Every structure is written in structure tokens, then in C-alpha cells.
């Protein structure tokens, strides 16, 4: 029983890593949101399975919270935002996707190298996935750097938060409840503020390209 569960956790972790790579190379805004929703669903499922395997009831709660926040609420908000900004069918020109992906692979190797000694000391059944969690954090970070449009940058930010959440589940079976609630609140408020900003940016610059946001430079 527990081997099946452990195997399925590892499978879901692998899916998360693949999703992170998919997001890195995805040029369409709409598909990015779909990928993000899928990432949230994978995360919720893996959290629930860890909960079953370890008999930690508070993980069910955090799985439900993830489902509500990252699969339903935030994607809904994102869809509304891209509709109202009229960027639903936007395709971003990304230069050098192969190079980005190769750099991504280097990041994954680095994450495994960093996480391995620590994972061995962990007592959790999920310890093997810590490297993947760190890798998805770094990959989302890279996604934020390589994007020049505001909406994909926001999605990168949210994906990074997903990676961190997965890291918390992998390393420690999740943070204490009160902390988790606080983090969820911060993320929700943050995304609301960013959503409002997107409209202001559009109004001010007539474009969603954050390359316009480079006036404040040292000269």
C-alpha cells in the first residue's frame, strides 16, 4: 500500500517538474494559465496523497486550500484579467527557447546536488522529491527573468510559490496550519494587488510590455 503511495507521489513530482519546463517554453498566455492550473491540481493531489500515506489530517486541509486557491480562485482571476486586458490570444516572442531549456536542465542538476545531502537526513517518505521542489522554484525564477510581458511574469511568481509549497510538503509534511493560512492570505492579497497593477500599467503605458518599466535607471 505505502509503496504505491510513495510511487504515486514520485510520479506527481515528476509531472510537476515537467510542467515547470513546459511553462518555461510556453509562449501563449492562455496555455500558461492552463499549465498553472494543472500545476495547482497536481500539487493538491500530491498533498492529499502524502496526507493519506502519513495519516496527517492537516494535510487534507492544506490540499483543499490549494485546490480552492490555486486551481479555482487564482486561475479564475487570471482568466478575467486576460479577458479584460484583451491579451487572451497573445503570443510572446521568446528568444532562444532551446538555450533556456538547457539552462533549465543545469538548474535541475544543481538543485539535486544541493538537496541530496539534506534529503538523506530527512525522515519523510517524500524526501526524494525535495530536489524536484527546489528545481521547480528555480525554474519558475528563471521564467520570471526571461519574460518581458507582465502577465507571464505574474504567473512565474505564482509558480514559484507552488514550488515552495511543494518543498514544504516534501521536506516536512507542510508548515504549521497558522503559517500556511498566513502564506495563503499573502498570496491571495498579492495576486489581487498585482491584478490591479496590470490595469494601471496598461492605462499608463498602453502596453503590457514591462520593458517600458525601465525608466528609473541610473544615468
Amino acid at each position: 500500500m505505502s509503496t504505491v503511495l510513495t510511487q504515486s507521489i514520485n510520479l506527481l513530482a515528476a509531472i510537476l517538474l515537467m510542467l515547470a519546463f513546459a511553462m518555461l517554453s510556453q509562449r501563449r498566455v492562455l496555455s500558461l494559465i492552463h499549465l498553472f492550473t494543472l500545476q495547482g491540481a497536481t500539487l493538491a493531489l500530491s498533498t492529499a496523497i502524502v496526507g493519506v500515506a502519513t495519516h496527517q489530517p492537516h494535510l487534507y486541509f492544506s490540499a483543499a486550500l490549494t485546490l480552492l486557491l490555486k486551481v479555482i480562485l487564482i486561475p479564475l482571476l487570471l482568466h478575467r484579467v486576460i479577458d479584460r486586458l484583451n491579451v487572451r490570444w497573445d503570443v510572446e516572442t521568446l528568444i532562444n527557447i532551446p538555450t533556456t531549456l538547457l539552462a533549465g536542465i543545469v538548474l535541475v542538476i544543481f538543485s539535486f546536488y544541493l538537496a541530496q545531502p539534506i534529503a538523506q537526513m530527512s525522515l519523510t517518505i517524500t524526501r526524494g522529491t525535495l530536489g524536484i521542489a527546489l528545481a521547480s522554484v528555480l525554474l519558475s525564477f528563471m521564467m520570471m527573468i526571461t519574460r518581458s510581458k507582465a502577465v507571464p511574469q505574474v504567473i512565474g511568481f505564482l509558480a514559484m510559490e507552488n514550488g515552495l509549497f511543494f518543498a514544504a510538503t516534501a521536506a516536512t509534511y507542510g508548515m504549521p496550519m497558522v503559517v500556511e493560512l498566513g502564506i495563503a492570505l499573502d498570496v491571495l492579497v498579492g495576486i489581487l494587488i498585482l491584478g490591479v497593477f496590470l490595469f494601471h500599467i496598461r492605462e499608463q503605458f498602453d502596453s503590457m510590455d514591462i520593458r517600458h518599466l525601465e525608466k528609473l535607471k541610473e544615468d
Partner: protein
Amino acid sequence: MSPLFLVLGFPLLGSMALAFFGHRPFARTLNMIFSLGTLVAAGALTMEVIARGPVWVWDQEFFIDPLNVFMVTLTAFVGWTTSIFSSPYMRVEIAQGKMTPARLRLYHSMYQLFSFTMLLALMTNNLGILWVAMEAATLTTVLLVSVYRSAASLEAAWKYFILCGVGIAQALFGTVLLYMAAGKLVGSGSDALLWTHLETIKGTLDPHIMGLAFAFLFIGYGTKVGLAPLHNWLPDAHAEGPTPVSAVLSGLLLNVALYAILRCKVLADGALHNHLASQLMMGFGLLSVVMAALFLWRQKDVKRLFAYSSIEHMGLITFAFGMGGPVANFAGLLHMTVHSLIKSAIFFTVGHATQKAGTQLMEGIRGLITVNPTVGWGMLLGALAILGLPPFGVFASEFLILTTAMREQAWATPFLLLALGIAFAAVFARVQPMVFGETSVKTLPHPPALVPVFVHLGLGLLLGLYIPPYLSTWYAQAARLLGN
């Protein structure tokens, strides 16, 4: 009931009340009253800690010891004086049409909520809640920075949000690792993130995990301190928001972020038995001092100038805590206090000067001493004080930091001296024409509140000349808590 709940309750209640009444004429006074209430409660809390030693409140969720009670009082004090400065400042902004009723409501409400998040970060015993409060402080200040909704302020706020968001995400990963290290010893549950609990078992925490955890925590909170090379958000955020916000960002938020690092450093030192934490802090501190000093030369905007000066001073304080030991820790704490008093005083005068001149460019600000002698003198004395001229407090703390550095970290001393020299020349060369020089600007419709400027400068002077015995014992106790 402990006064702690009042310290948190006043700003929280204030933010709710001001969310409804923030646009009314009495809101500016209401803002002052709530801030004063926070200060009084913080004073009562301080009395309690002095009388009874460290206190735990609410099932160990909050913890007050000499280290954080001193910062709570400082935060409440500067929060109050800034609210006094903010009142006439906002009247002028309304008269100039920069603030609409909706923006005023947002501004006042977020000002109080920002105080609340900082105080929560300072007093919580739970390192997870510390992270949540720091992130919430980022969110409230993002709204404060973008309050004018101009292109530049949106850009500054966006950059601030993304950079600090990424930074603070690293801190969350660090917190997860810390929780993992503790969970191995005490099992999971919220106990494993209580700082006082971790402090008692710090010697047995796994050094591998703790090393990595501290590195992530340091990068994360270090971004918020404004340490180079992650400082890019800081000058923009200071320059584009309202000036009272610049004052509290520089004077308070940077301190709170550094406080988070200090708490983590104590744990890392106990677990690691090596100098990783110290070396990281000294290296990045020194880099910030040198880099900021060089950037000071290139500034044209007065608020950016003093923002870079804040990076320099935070770097110096980080360096001092990195050296560790009773003297350097004492000097670091003193420098934190004096910097936060004097830098906010400078921003008060800068705020008035820019409103008068209608520009933040230094070439447009001239002859303050003829137009309004109090503002002119305030800025001149503030600048001299922040540059470390005796007899102000900055001189005392910089002297202690430099002499300790000469003895213990001789390699760093030339860099420090050179950077402080460059900073002196750069800032003084720019402040001098702003204060003297020729001008033809008219006076503003509403007189500024300049009492806070001189109260802050007076306290800065006092700390340079004579530190009252109870204050010095208090500093010494706090310095001891920080260990080596």
C-alpha cells in the same frame, strides 16, 4: 491583559477605521492618535520588560526580550513622529491635487496596517509568522509606494513587488529548511518554529541543513534590508512614493528586516560552530557600503541620494553584526537607532523642500536656509549627523565599528574608511548648495510640522554625547543576546 495586545491592536484598529474615514479632514489627526496609542502601549510594554525580564504572551506565540522591545519602541516612536509630519504634508499634497479622497483612504489605512505588520514581525516568536508578517509588510508598502499612480511610481512598485517577492520566497524556503531541521529533533507541530524553543536546542540542530537554511534566509531577508547586489528596488521605492513613506521605509522597515536576519543568525551560529553567518554578513555588508558610496556620486534626485545613503548605513550595520562580539553588537544596535532617527528627520526636511520646489531634482532645490531657515538648518544638521560628524550619535557608533574592525577585521578597514570618505564628499557636495544657494520659490499654503525633525536630531545628538545608564544596560543586554 498584556500591553502587547494594545501595541498590535491600535494599528490594526486604526487601519480599519481609516479605511472608512481616511479621506475626511480629521483622518490626519486620527492617524496621529492611533500612532500615539501604539507608542504609549509600546512604552508600557517596555516598562514591563524592564521590570520583569523577557516575557512570553499567548502560549509562547509572542516573545519580548530586550532586543526586540527596543526595536518595538523605536518603531512606534518613529511611526508616531512620521504621522505628525505626514499631516501637513498631505494637506499640501491635497492642495496640489496629487491626493484624491480614495488615495488618502488607501494611504492612511495602509500606513497603520504597515505599522501593524512591522510590530507583528518584531514581536512574534514564530519564525513562520515572521515570514508572513514580512511579506504582508511588503504588500502594504507596495500599495503605499504606488499611491500616486504615476508611471514612475507604478514602475517602482512593480519592481519592488517582484524583486522583494522573489527575495522573500527564498526566505520561505529557508524557513522550511529550518522547520525541517527542528522537526527532526522535536517532531512537527508549531512548537518547532518557535524561536525561543529553537534557541534552547540550537546546538543540536543539523549543521548541514542549518547552513543552507541560513543562506536562503539571508538572501531573502537581505533583499529587504537592501543589501547589494539585491538593492535595486530600494532607491526607486524611496524616490517614487510619498515622503512619509520614504521616512518609514528607511527608518523602520529596513531595521525590521535586519532584525529577522539577526534572529536567524543566533540560531545558525549555535548550530554551525563556524563563521559562515558572520562571513556572509560581513561580506555583503561591506559590498553594500562600498557600492552605495560609489552610487551616491551619480544621484540627481534628492530622495534617491538619501536612499543610497540608507543602503550604505544598513551595510555598515550588517557588517558590525557580522563581526559580532559585545562591542560591535552594541555599536550595531546604536547605529540602527541613530540611523533610523536621523534618516527619518532628513526625509521630513526633504519632503518639505521638494514640495516647495515642486521637484525632487537637486538642481531645482536651492536656498532652503533663506526661504525657511528651520528646514534649511534641519537638513544641514541632519546631513552632517548622518555623515558621522561628532558630536552626533552616528559618530559614536561608526567610531566603535571602525575601531573594532581595525582590531578584528583589519583587511576591511581601508574599504570602510574610503567608502565613508567618498560618501561624505558626495552627500555634502550636494546638500550644501541645496541649503545655501540662491532661490526664488514661494512659501507653501500650509506650514510644515518641523518639531519631529528637531526631536529626532536632538535624540541623535543626545545618544552621541551621553547614553543614559538604563539605555546602555538595555543595549548591552540586547548585544549579549546576539552572542558572538
